[in-house]
C-alpha cells in the first residue's frame, strides 16, 4: 500500500477516536459530571497499581476467549449473537459437574478439570443448536441465537431459584459458593489465575494460526466470502459452518467454565457478564483481524475495570464504559465508510491494483 494511503488511514482512525471522545465528553457534560475527572478516574482505576492491572487481565481473559471463538464464526460469515448463551450454558455445565462430583472420592483437581471440560462441551452443544436451527430450520443465526440467549438465562435463573437453590432462601446472589478446593489456583494475593491466563493466550494463538495457516481456515474464509462459490468448488459448506459454530461455542463454554471456577465459584444469574456481546464489538472494531484482538481487548477490559470507579467517586452509572466502547466502534465503522467513499475502496484513485488488498 502506498505510503500516502497508510497515513490517510491512520488519520481517519485518529479522527474516529477523537470524535468518539468528543461524543462521550458531551454525554458526561449532559450528565453534569466533570469529564476530565471522569477519564482520569477510569485510567486511575485500571492502571494505578499492579493489582488493579491484574484485575484488567481478569476481565481480559473471558473477552479473549469469546473473541477467539467469534473470529472463527466471523470468518465463515456467521453472526454468532448466541455467544452470550453459549458462555452461560458452559457455566451451567461446569457447575453441574462440580455439584455432582464434589462429595465423591474423585480427586479435587480432577473434578476441576472435568468441570471445565464439561463447560467446553456445554458451550459447544448450545452453539450447535443455533447452527442446527440455521442449517436445518432456516432460522437466521441472529434470531435463533438471541432466542437461545434468553432460554439460557431462563435456565440459569430456574436452576438458581429451583433445584440448586441455597439452603434457606434462594436469591439473585446465586447458588451456594463451592468450597475453596474446587477453584482454580490463583496468583498469591491476586484475583488472577495463571491457568485462566494461559487459556486466554493459548486461545488467540490457536485461532490466529488456525485461520491463517490451515486449510480449514482457508475454507471457512471461502464460505464467508461467497458461500455459493465455495459450495460449487466442492467445499462441504454446511458441515464447515456447523464446525465453526462448534468451535466458537467451545471457546465460549470455556469462558463460562472459568467464570465459575476462577472468579465467582458459584453460578450467578448474569454469569456471562456480557463478554459475548463485548467480544462482538471488539471483533467489529478490529475488522476481524486476529492480530489486533489482544491489545484492543485489553483496552476494553481496562475501560470495564476503570469505570467501576465512577459510581464510587462521581455517583455516575458504570454503564459509561459501554457507552464509550459502543461509540468508539460506531465512529470507527462510520469513518471507515467515509474513507472508502472519499478515497475509493482500498485507495482506488491510486491505481486499481490496490483493490484486492483489504
Amino acid at each position, binding site marked *: 500500500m502506498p505510503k500516502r494511503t497508510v497515513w490517510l488511514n491512520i488519520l481517519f482512525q485518529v479522527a474516529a477516536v477523537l470524535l468518539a471522545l468528543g461524543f462521550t465528553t458531551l*454525554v458526561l457534560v*449532559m*450528565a*453534569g459530571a466533570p469529564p476530565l475527572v471522569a477519564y482520569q478516574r477510569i485510567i486511575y482505576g485500571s492502571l494505578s497499581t499492579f493489582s488493579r492491572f491484574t484485575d484488567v487481565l481478569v476481565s481480559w481473559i473471558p473477552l479473549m476467549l469469546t473473541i477467539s471463538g467469534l473470529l472463527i464464526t466471523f470468518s465463515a460469515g456467521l*453472526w454468532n*449473537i448466541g455467544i452470550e448463551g453459549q458462555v452461560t450454558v458452559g457455566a451451567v455445565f461446569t457447575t453441574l459437574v462440580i455439584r455432582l462430583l464434589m462429595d465423591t472420592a474423585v480427586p479435587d483437581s480432577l473434578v476441576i478439570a472435568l468441570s471445565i471440560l464439561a463447560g467446553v462441551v456445554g458451550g459447544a452443544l448450545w452453539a450447535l443448536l443455533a447452527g442446527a*436451527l440455521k442449517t*436445518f*430450520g*432456516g*432460522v*437466521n443465526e*441472529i*434470531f*435463533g441465537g*438471541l*432466542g*437461545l440467549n*434468553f*432460554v439460557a*438465562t*431462563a435456565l440459569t*435463573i*430456574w436452576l438458581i*431459584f*429451583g433445584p440448586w437453590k441455597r439452603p434457606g432462601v*434462594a436469591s439473585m446472589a446465586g447458588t451456594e459458593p463451592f468450597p475453596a478446593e474446587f477453584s482454580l489456583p490463583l496468583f498469591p494475593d491476586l484475583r488472577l489465575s495463571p491457568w485462566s491466563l494461559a487459556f486466554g493466550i493459548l486461545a488467540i494463538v490457536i485461532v490466529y494460526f488456525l485461520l491463517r495457516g490451515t486449510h480449514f481456515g482457508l475454507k471457512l474464509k471461502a464460505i464467508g466470502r461467497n458461500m455459493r462459490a465455495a459450495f460449487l468448488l466442492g467445499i462441504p459448506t454446511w458441515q464447515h459452518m456447523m464446525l465453526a459454530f462448534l468451535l466458537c461455542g467451545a471457546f465460549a463454554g470455556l469462558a463460562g467454565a472459568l467464570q465459575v471456577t476462577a472468579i465467582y465459584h458459584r453460578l450467578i444469574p448474569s454469569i456471562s457478564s456480557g463478554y459475548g*456481546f463485548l467480544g*462482538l*464489538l471488539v471483533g*467489529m472494531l478490529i475488522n476481524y483481524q486476529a492480530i489486533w484482538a489482544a491489545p484492543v481487548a485489553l483496552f476494553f477490559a481496562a475501560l470495564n475495570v476503570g469505570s467501576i470507579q465512577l459510581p464510587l467517586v462521581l455517583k*455516575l*452509572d458504570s*454503564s*459509561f*464504559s*459501554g*457507552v464509550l466502547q*459502543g*461509540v468508539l*466502534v*460506531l465512529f470507527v*465503522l*462510520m469513518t*471507515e*465508510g*467515509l474513507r*472508502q*467513499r472519499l478515497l475509493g475502496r482500498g485507495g482506488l484513485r491510486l491505481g486499481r491494483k490496490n483493490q484486492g488488498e483489504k
Partner: protein
Amino acid sequence: MDTSTLIVSLAGVLAWAAPILFAVLGETITERAGVINLSLNGTILLSAMGGFAMAVDTGSLLLGFLTGMAIGALVALVVALSSITLHQSQVAVGFVLALLCRDLSYFLGNPYMGLPGPRLSTWSIPLLSEIPYLGPLFFDQDLVTYTSFALIFIIWLFVYKTRPGLALRGIGERPAAAFVRGANVKRLRYLYTVIGGAIIGLAGPAYSLSIKAGWKGTISGLDGIGWIALAITIFGGWNPLRAAFGAYLFSFLQWLGLALQTRLPNIPSQVLQVAPFPLMILTLLLVNIGNAEWVDRILASLPEGMRRVVARFLRALQASPPASLGVPFESE
C-alpha cells in the same frame, strides 16, 4: 375466573401489546424498504428514558412522546447514513447501536431513577365503551392503545392500497426496477427508515409514560423487548396485520405466564416471564422451515392426504422476506 375479570385481563393484553406493536410496525416499514434496523432494543430503552425525562422536566406528556419519536428517528438516521451512504454493514451498525443506546439510557437516566412522573390516563370513549364485552375491551383504554389500533390499519392500507405503498414494496423487492421506473431508491430508503424509526420510538414512552410508568434503570424490565419485536417482525411476514397478530399473541402468552404463576408456585416467576422466548424460536422455525429443502423431501415421501394437509399448514405459516432486504443499492 369470571367473565368481567377475564375481560379486564384481555383489555390489559391489548394495552400491553401497544409498545410491541409500535416497534414491530416501525420495523416492518423499515424492512419493507430493504433496510434492517437492528437497534430496536437500544432504541426502545433510550426513547423510554428520554421520553420520561422530558415529561418529568416539562410536565408535558406530549413532549415526552415527541422526544421518544425524535430519538427513534435519530437512531434510524444513523443506521440509514451508515448503511445507505457509507456502505457499512447494517447488521453491525444496528447491533452496536442496540448496545450503545441501552448503555446510554442507563447512564443518562441515572438521575431520573425512581422519580415520580406523569402518566397517561385512561380515556373511555363515550357510548362505544358502553357496549357489552367489546366496550371495556376496546374502548376503555388510553390514547396510546387507541393509536396502536389505528396504526395497524393505517400502515396496512398504506403498504397494500396506495401508490407510495407500492413504491415502498418495490424498493424492498426490486430496487433496480423501482429505480428505472423513476423512484429515488436511496432517498426513499432514508425516508422510510427514519419514519419507521420514529414509530419504533413511540414504543419507549408507551412504556415509561403509560403501561410501565417511570424509569427504573436496569430493573425497568424493558431490556429484551426490542429483540422480541425483531422476531415478531419476521413472524409477521412483513405484513402489518400478521405482525399485529404476532404482537397480540406474544402479549397474551406473557399474560398467560403471569396468570399461571399462581397455579404453579414451584416455578420461579422469572422462568414464566421468559417462556414466550422459546415459543418465539419455535414459531420462527415453523415460519422458515417450509423453505428448507429436506422438508420438501420428507413431504414427498408422506402419503398423499397427509402430505396435502402438512404442506398447506407449512405454506400458511411460511413467510419470505423482501427480496432485497439488507442488500445495498447502487444506481450505476
